[in-house]
């Protein structure tokens, strides 16, 4: 698969969902476009959250994201794949991550999109620091996320 079909970016600035949709949705051989957008939620484990700071491991993050996309392409016939993950501080309601996948048919696009976010959450070196009414806390990794990623093991 041509690397130009992959668009993988770690950035501090926000992204535009219409622009990202337009980037991947211009090929008429694709009948399906699936997007996932992750946002900053107002609560976690019962505590109010006011903002979120994302830290990452520059270099390794990009390498892991590329590897995850390679694995998705081995499983499903995909055309375009976009992963944009923000780092830095984000306010309540802001967008954190965009995943976009195109394919001839919907089943491959849905499955690959879910696979990509499940693997990103458990394998890519990002860490969330939540600020809220009880101070700042590093988010704990969730067993449910680990289980979700394990479901994809062959």
């Amino acid at each position, binding site marked *: 698969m041509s690397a130009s079909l992959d668009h993988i970016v770690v950035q501090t600035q926000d992204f535009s969902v219409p622009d990202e949709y337009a980037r991947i949705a211009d090929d008429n051989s694709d009948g399906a476009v699936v997007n996932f957008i992750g946002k900053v939620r107002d609560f976690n484990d019962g505590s109010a959250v006011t903002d979120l700071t994302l830290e990452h*491991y520059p270099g390794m993050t990009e390498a892991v994201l590329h590897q995850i996309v390679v694995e998705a392409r081995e499983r499903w016939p995909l055309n375009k794949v976009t992963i944009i993950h923000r780092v830095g501080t984000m306010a309540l309601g802001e967008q954190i991550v965009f995943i976009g996948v195109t394919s001839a048919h919907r089943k491959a696009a849905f499955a690959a999109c879910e696979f990509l976010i499940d693997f990103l959450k458990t394998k890519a070196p990002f860490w969330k620091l939540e600020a809220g009414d009880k101070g700042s806390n590093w988010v704990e990794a969730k067993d449910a996320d680990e289980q979700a990623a394990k479901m994809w093991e062959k």
Partner: protein
Amino acid sequence: MINVLFFAQVRELLGESTIAIEASEATSTAEGLRAQIAAKDEKWGKVLAADKLLVAVNQTISSWDTPVEDGDEVAFFPPVTGG
């Protein structure tokens, strides 16, 4: 030298994001390197003893018996929480 990196709460608790360690017999595996750094003092021992601590050797998540050589980059961090 081995370039050692710390991330997230490990970085915050240690108050360091990177240190350089002289490669030696004792630091020839990821576990050996961890033990050597953890021996610095009580605080470092506690932070680097965390049971969920992960290690990446040259930017790949690795097992604790992975060989470490002079010039390698080794990172210690907690389980990841992106997305």
